[in-house]
C-alpha cells in the first residue's frame, strides 16, 4: 500500500496542478514533493533492514501479456527512492527564483518524472520495469525541449533516439527471457532470474549485451556517452539536475537489479570487458573535463568519470564494490545537484558560463565560495566528505579485482582534483572583472537549497553507516545468489 502511495502520489499531484491557477503551481509542487519525502521517511522507519523485499504489492494488470503490477522495496531500492524523494523537492525549490513559461506543465512534468523514477526503482516485474523506464524518458525530453537552450531541438532529439534505441534492445532481451519462463509465461523478477540462469552461455552473452547497452546509454558509460554533454548543457538546470542527479542512477540500478542477477554467466564472461571500458571512460572523460571552457559542460564530463567508476565497481561483483556503488550513487546525486545549482546561480548573475570570463567571486560572495569549496571537496573525494566513502570502497574493490585497473582508476582522484581545482581557481579566485565585481552572495532561498546538501555531504562523509546498513543485506543476498556461477567462472 505504502509502495503504491509512493509511486502514484506524485502523479496525482501533477494532475492536480492543472486544476489550480498556474501561479500557484510552484508552491503546490513543492508541497507535494515534501509530502512525498515524508512518505519515503515513513518507509525508512518501517523498513526492516534484514527483511528482503518489503511493502510488496502484486496486482494482476494485463493478463494477456503476463504483466502484473508487482512492486516491492528492498535496501537497494530504498536508498535510490530516498535519493529521489530528497532531490526532487530541492530541485523544485531551486527553481523558485525563476519564472518559467507554462509553470503547471513544467512542474507537472517534474512530478511525473518522479513517479516514473520511483516506479523504476521498486518494480519487480520485467515489463513493468520497462514501462516505467520508458515513461521516465517522456517528461525529461519535454522539459529539455520546451525550456532548454539554443539548438535544443536537435540535441534533445538525439538524446531521445539514443536512449529509446537502447531501451528497445532491452525490451527484446526481456521478451526473449519471458518466452523462456515455464508454463504460461510471466515477467516476474524471480522467474526471469531463473529463466536467465538456465540459458546457455552464448544466449546469456547476447542477453547481457542487449541489456547492458540500454543501461550503458542511460548512465552513460564510454563509448555510449555522446548524447550526454550536449544534453546536459542545453537543458534547463532543473532538467540537468534530474538527468544527472537521479536519472543516470536508473542505468546503474538496472545493472544491479536487472543485469547481474539475470545473466550471471554473461556477466562472468563479459564483466572484465565492462570494467575495462568503464575505466577507459573514467580517464577519457576526466581528460576532456580538464580542457573544458564551459562550466556546465565540465561538470557533465566529470559526471561521466564518476559514473564510470561506479560502473567498474559494480562489475567486480564484490560486496564492497557494490556497497561503494550504492553510497557513491547517493553522494554523486547530491553533489552534482549542488554543482549544477551553483553554476546556475553564477550564470544568473554574470550571464556567462565561460570559465575564462569568470573570476574573483570569492571576495564578493564568501558564503557561495564556502559552499562551493565543500561541494568540490566532496566531488574530489576528500576524507570526511560523502565522496570519499564511495570512491574509497569502489577503488578498494577494483584493487582486489585487478590491481592494475585499481591503480588506473585511482588516477581519477588526481585528475578529478586537477579539473575541480582549476575550475575553482578560474571562477572563484583571481581578480574580479566587470561581470563579477558586483556579485551578490547567496539569497535566503538559495541557502535553503544548498545548506541541507552541504550538511548531507559532511554527515554522510563522517557517518555513512546507517545508509550502508540499509542496503547491506540486499547486496549480500544478491551476490550470494549468483556466487555459484561467478565462482566457477573464476
Amino acid at each position, binding site marked *: 500500500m505504502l509502495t503504491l502511495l509512493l509511486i502514484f502520489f506524485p502523479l496525482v499531484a501533477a494532475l492536480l496542478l492543472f486544476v489550480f491557477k498556474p501561479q500557484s503551481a510552484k508552491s503546490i509542487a513543492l508541497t507535494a514533493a515534501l509530502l512525498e519525502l515524508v512518505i519515503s521517511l515513513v518507509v525508512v522507519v518501517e523498513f526492516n533492514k534484514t527483511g528482503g523485499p518489503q511493502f510488496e504489492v502484486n496486482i494482476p494488470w494485463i493478463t*494477456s*501479456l503476463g504483466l502484473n503490477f508487482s512492486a516491492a522495496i528492498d535496501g537497494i531500492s530504498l536508498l535510490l527512492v530516498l535519493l529521489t524523494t530528497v532531490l526532487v523537492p530541492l530541485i523544485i525549490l531551486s527553481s523558485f527564483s525563476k519564472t518559467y513559461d507554462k509553470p503547471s506543465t513544467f512542474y507537472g512534468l517534474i512530478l511525473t518524472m518522479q513517479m516514473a523514477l520511483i516506479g523504476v526503482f521498486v518494480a519487480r516485474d520485467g515489463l513493468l520495469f520497462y514501462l516505467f523506464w520508458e515513461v521516465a524518458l517522456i517528461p525529461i525530453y519535454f522539459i529539455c525541449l*520546451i525550456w532548454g537552450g539554443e539548438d535544443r531541438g536537435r540535441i534533445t532529439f538525439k538524446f531521445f533516439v539514443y536512449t529509446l534505441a537502447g531501451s528497445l534492445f532491452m525490451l*527484446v532481451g526481456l521478451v526473449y527471457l519471458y*518466452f523462456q519462463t515455464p508454463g504460461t509465461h510471466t515477467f516476474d523478477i524471480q522467474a526471469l532470474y531463473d529463466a536467465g540462469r538456465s540459458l546457455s552461455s552464448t544466449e546469456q552473452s547476447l542477453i547481457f549485451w542487449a541489456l547492458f547497452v540500454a543501461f550503458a546509454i542511460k548512465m552513460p558509460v564510454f563509448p555510449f556517452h555522446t548524447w550526454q554533454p550536449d544534453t546536459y548543457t542545453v537543458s534547463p538546470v532543473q532538467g540537468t539536475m534530474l538527468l544527472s542527479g537521479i536519472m543516470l542512477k536508473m542505468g546503474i540500478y538496472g545493472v544491479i537489479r536487472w543485469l547481474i542477477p539475470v545473466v550471471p554467466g554473461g556477466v562472468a564472461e563479459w564483466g572484465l570487458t565492462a570494467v575495462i571500458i568503464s575505466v577507459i571512460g573514467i580517464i577519457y572523460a576526466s581528460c576532456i573535463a580538464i580542457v573544458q571552457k564551459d562550466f556546465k559542460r565540465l561538470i557533465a564530463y566529470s559526471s561521466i568519470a564518476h559514473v564510470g567508476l561506479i560502473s567498474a565497481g559494480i562489475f567486480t561483483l564484490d560486496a564492497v564494490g557494490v556497497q561503494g556503488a550504492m553510497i557513491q550513487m547517493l553522494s554523486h546525486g547530491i553533489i552534482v545537484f549542488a554543482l549544477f545549482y551553483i553554476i546556475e546561480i553564477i550564470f544568473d548573475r554574470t550571464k556567462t558560463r565561460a570559465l575564462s570570463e569568470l573570476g574573483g567571486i570569492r571576495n564578493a560572495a564568501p558564503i557561495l565560495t564556502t559552499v562551493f569549496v565543500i561541494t568540490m571537496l566532496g566531488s574530489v573525494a576528500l576524507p570526511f566528505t560523502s565522496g570519499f566513502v564511495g570512491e574509497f570502497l569502489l577503488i578498494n574493490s577494483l584493487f582486489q579485482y585487478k590491481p592494475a585497473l585499481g591503480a588506473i582508476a585511482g588516477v581519477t582522484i588526481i585528475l578529478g582534483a586537477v579539473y575541480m581545482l582549476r575550475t575553482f581557481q578560474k571562477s572563484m579566485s583571481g581578480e574580479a572583472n566587470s561581470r563579477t565585481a558586483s556579485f551578490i552572495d547567496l539569497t535566503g532561498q538559495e541557502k535553503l537549497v544548498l545548506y541541507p546538501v552541504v550538511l548531507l555531504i559532511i554527515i554522510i562523509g563522517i557517518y555513512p553507516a546507517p545508509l550502508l546498513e540499509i542496503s547491506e543485506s540486499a547486496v549480500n543476498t544478491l551476490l550470494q545468489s549468483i556466487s555459484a556461477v561467478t565462482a566457477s567462472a573464476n
Partner: protein
Amino acid sequence: MNALFVITGLGIVSLLAEFGNLKRWLTAFVLVGLTAAVILAALDWNTTQRYFSDMLVFDNQALAFTALISISTILWFWLSVDYFATQTHRTDRTSLVIFAVVGSVIMASFNNMAMLFLGIEILSMSLYVLAGSRKDSLSSTEAAFKYFLMGSFATGFLLFGIALIYGATGSFHIHTIAQTIAANPAGLPTFFYAGVLLMLIGLAFKISAVPFHFWAPDVYSGSPTTVTAFMSTVVKVAAIGAFIRIFSSCFVAVESTWSLVLQVIMILTLVIPNITAVYQNNVKRMLAYSSVGHVGYILLAFVSSPTETGTIFYYLTTYSVSSLAAFSVLHLVEGNSEEITVDYFNGLFKKNSWLAVTITIALLSLAGIPPLAGFFGKYMVFAQAINHGYTSLVIVAVITSLIGVYYYFRIIIAMYFNESSAPSITLTASQKMLLFVLIALTFALGLFPDVIMTLFRA
C-alpha cells in the same frame, strides 16, 4: 445483422432528408443511429447468426469489427462537423459516408465472395465521390480520379481471382471452399492457386500494401482532410477486416501458396513507406505513408500467426484512435489551406496547448511509446512474432519503428521548438471535448488492453 439494418436505414433516411426541413437534425439522427448500431452489435455478442443462405455470418469477429467501424464513424462525425455545414451538400455527403459504412460492415461479415465484392464496391463507390467532394480543388478531383482508376484496377484482380476460385471449387461460399480444400489433400487445379494469389493482390491494393500502395499518398493528400481521416481509419479497418476474414479462415489451409509472397509484401510495407515518410514535408502525405507503414505491422502479426486475429484487432483499434486524434488536430490547424506542411505546426504549443498536447500524444502513440495504446499494439505484434519464431522480422520492424520516431518527432519538435508569428487558434467547447475523449481513449486503451484482448479469448 441488426446493426447493418440500422445503418442501411440511416443511409436511406439521409437521402430522404432533403425533403421537408429534416436536414437540421440529420447529424444528430445519424449519431443516434450509429450508437444504436454499436449497442445492437454488443447485444448479438456470442450468437453467431447466419443470414441470406449463409451469405453473411455475424460471428464475434464480424461484430467486433462492426462495433469498431461504427464507433470510429461516430468520432469521425464529431471531428468533421464543418464538413457537413453546407447548404447544398449536407444530405448527399452524409448518405455517402453512411453507405461507405454499410460497405465496411459487409466487408467485415461476408461469408460469400459475392458479398465481399459487393461490400468493397459499395464502400469504394461512395469513397470515389467523397474524395472528389471539394469540387473547386484540382487536387481533390485528381485524387478522386486516381482513386477510381486504381480501385477499378484492383477490383479487376479481385474479380478474376474470385472467378478462378469458383471455377476450381464450384462455390462462392467461404466455408464450402474451405471444405473443398480439405477434401482434396492432393491439391486442386493450378488455377485455384492462381486465383488465391490474384485475390491477394486485389486485397493488397485495398489495404494499400507495398508495392500496391502508390495511390494512397496521392489520394490521401488530395482529398479533403476529413475524408482522409475517414479513409485512413474506418476504410482501413474494413479492408484489413475483409483481408483477415478470408485469409485466416479459408485460405489458411493453403498457406504455403501465399505465405512467402505475403512475407515479401510485409517487409516492403514496413521498410519503404517508413523511409519515404521521412522525406515528406506535406503532413498529410507523411501521415499517408505512416498509415501504409502501419499495415506492415498488421501483416507481421498476420504472417506470424494467421489465426490469432485478436492482436490485429487491438492494433487496429489503437491505430484508429490515434489517427483520429492526429487528423482532428490536423484539420483544426489547416484552416482553409490546401496543403499543410510541417511549418504549420511551428510554435503550436504556445498558440494552443490543447492541440499541441493532443497531437503529441497521438504521434507518440503511433510511434509506439509506452504507456500509450500504440506501444501495446506494437508490443503484442512483436511478442506474437517472437513467439512464433520470427525474431529476425521483429528486428526489421523494431528498426522501422525507430525510423517512424524520426518523422513523427519532426512535427513534435516544430510545435515546441520553432517560433511562429501566425495567429493563435481558438477552439469551441465541442472540439475541446472531442480532443479530450480521444486523449482519454489513447491512454485507456494503453492501460487496459485486456478489455479488448479478452474479447477474442472466449
